[in-house]
């Protein structure tokens, strides 16, 4: 059964590809209106084309604080301040060994993966409090918050921070009836690892370490996001829901 999101307005960042795209499609299938954000205008146009009426694309580079504010301002105008759901899915991964990790890679990763969810959540929570909407925010974390990926130092740090951003925001937003949770995906087939999947041998070696013996499709993470975004887990807040096929159990 799909969660019932009929009539709900949802901002989804990173909606042009991967988990964000799957989340936008799933939330829409469950009845939500979406405001899809990405810097990839072509990908965005394609998703919004599939979504059709009632859905909007908004091109923005979330590496810029001003763009984050514009996202919320534009969605407020679009929906007359009524925002029910925010999915922070936009993220980048730059692979460079820790000792050689450049300042540029570090800054860009933290800007997009951590500061953008922070800034957008801040304004969205303020909007929800203003309108009295008991909304739901879903952050996309990662199992890398607990298990580092080689050469992923900035990404790993950003996802570790997402865990505590989620919990801090949840704690302060709880009295307003606003829930903040995260999904922590394991290995998911997205553009972020498309190059790795081109080497079938090392890829299947990695999959062999996952108890379920496979990677996830973005749609499977989107299903978890849809659950957290809905009113179904109305007593769940500050939770990091791992969805990794058992990868981090050992």
């Amino acid at each position: 059964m799909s969660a019932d999101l009929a009539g709900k307005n949802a901002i989804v960042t990173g909606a042009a590809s991967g988990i964000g795209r799957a989340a936008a499609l799933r939330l829409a299938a469950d009845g939500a209106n979406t405001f899809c954000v990405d810097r990839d205008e072509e990908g965005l146009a394609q998703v919004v084309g599939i979504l059709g009426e009632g859905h909007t694309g908004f091109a923005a580079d979330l590496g810029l604080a001003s763009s984050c504010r514009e996202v919320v301002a534009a969605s407020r105008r679009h929906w007359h301040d009524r925002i029910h759901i925010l999915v922070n899915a936009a993220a980048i991964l730059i692979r460079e060994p820790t000792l050689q990790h450049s300042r540029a890679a570090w800054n860009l990763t933290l800007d997009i993966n951590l500061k953008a969810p922070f800034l957008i959540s801040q304004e969205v929570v303020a909007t929800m409090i203003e309108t009295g909407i008991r909304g739901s925010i879903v952050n996309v974390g990662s199992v890398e918050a607990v298990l580092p990926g080689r050469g992923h130092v900035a990404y790993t740090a950003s996802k570790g921070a997402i865990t505590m951003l989620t919990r801090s925001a949840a704690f302060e937003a709880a009295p307003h009836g606003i829930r903040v949770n995260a999904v922590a995906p394991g290995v998911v087939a997205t553009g972020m690892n498309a190059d790795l999947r081109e080497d079938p041998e090392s890829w299947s070696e990695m999959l062999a370490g996952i108890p379920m013996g496979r990677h996830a499709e973005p749609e499977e993470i989107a299903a978890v996001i849809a659950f957290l975004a809905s009113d179904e887990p109305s007593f769940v807040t500050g939770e990091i829901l791992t969805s990794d096929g058992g990868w981090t159990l050992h």
Partner: protein
Amino acid sequence: MGGRQVAIVTGAGQGIGKGIARTLAERGYDLVITSRTERDLDGTRQSVEEAGGAATIVVADLKDPGTASRLVESALTRFGRVDGLVNNAAVNIFAPFLDQTDSNLDEMIETNLTAPFFLCQAVANHWIEKGLPGAIVNISSAEDTIAYPEQVPYASSKGGLLSMTKVLALEWGPLGIRVNAVSPGSIDTEMTPEVYRRQASRLMPIGRLGKPEEIGSCVHFLLSDDAAFVTGTSLYADGGYMLQ
């Protein structure tokens, strides 16, 4: 997935278990419900039927070694299938550690940990024998992670249940059997002390206690295909209690 699915829910006579049974019935499950008290189960069956489901009652003590296979057989006899198992039954006897008796300890460990152990075995044996996928949800507690005074046996049993959940998820991941936990915080049931209700607005970030149905919706999600890649995890449903 055609037709109604079938789940076994233990401790279904009252409280969280009754809420889980009701929620699952609303979402297309028929149920095998068990408890030690027939009259309580009659109430749950009525609630399940009102929600459009069918329920088979099994009056049994989970400490009895024969109960696990009896529950699985009941599901197969009545409904011809079993898709999910919800280990919910639990006992909590409060006492300072030095005053906890052998019999208290046995009661809690056997009900809260040993019974789920053998039920997992019984239902998974059926699935593995038939080559079927399946899903198990163990109802743990926020106390699998955080401490409260005077509940050493209960907390130990829940810590054990969480560990068991993880190991089974690992062992059965390759077989398509998912094992997860829901760890509730303070839920408002017949057993809830009045003082908890009075303090809820102050002690809970969300400002209230949880409802049994709110655990039911988490259980439903973990049993469903929406959680197809979720295994070995615990979903804390505590109204933000563990954030403080």
